[in-house]
């Protein structure tokens, strides 16, 4: 299963004021039984992220700003998806 598309990310509210919107993911394969989706992207993640926790923030190359300071997206190819039953 695969499909092209975009994954969106927005900033969490009520944490701190200067938090930027970002797409956040785990590195690696989606384990069996875990709800979510697995994807590939050519967009380089932010430098300096914790290992295994890539994110793509507003202002980085390849990150599309859908709503400034609120909502961003990156282009991806989804290769696996587990929905809630």
């Amino acid at each position, binding site marked *: 299963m695969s499909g092209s598309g975009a994954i969106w990310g927005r900033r*969490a509210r009520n944490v701190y*004021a200067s938090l930027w919107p970002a797409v956040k993911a785990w590195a*690696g394969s989606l384990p069996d039984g875990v709800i979510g989706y697995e994807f590939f992207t050519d967009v380089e993640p932010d430098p300096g992220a914790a290992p295994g926790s*890539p994110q793509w923030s507003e202002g980085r190359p390849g990150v599309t700003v859908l709503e400034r300071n609120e909502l961003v997206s990156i282009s991806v190819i989804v290769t696996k998806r587990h929905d809630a039953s």
Partner: protein
Amino acid sequence: MRRAKPEELQIRAVPIMTAQISESELHKWMPVPFERVDDPWAVREPSQAALIQLGSGAYVVVWYGETSQQLLLEVPETGVDGTQVLVEFFGEVPLPPSRILWHRPDIALPKKIRSGKREDQSSETVSRTKSKRSALEVRGPRGRK
């Protein structure tokens, strides 16, 4: 320490350390109200987060993943000495060194934590944890959510 208001930090924060702790340890060691964030567009997993001001006046941002049980500690991107903030953080939070999964290589752990971590790393359990984490690091831009 105290929970600070969101507007008190006007600078972007960046990760400096991750650790594995239980939710009860989180609330015992950092007794401040946390904000629960379960918006899947905003966090990798249902999380608890707080902007915390330490007794020294330094700010840290604490994220806790409820599923992974991972703590992510962030500090303001500019204008702070990350090494000093970690000294102050460990002065208030009794987090055992064996729980540290990663810290930014350009930021030194406090001396007492470094010596404790060396002793802990002789254990087989920690060695396995580190190996597993390294395997995830090499996957580059591929991700899952």
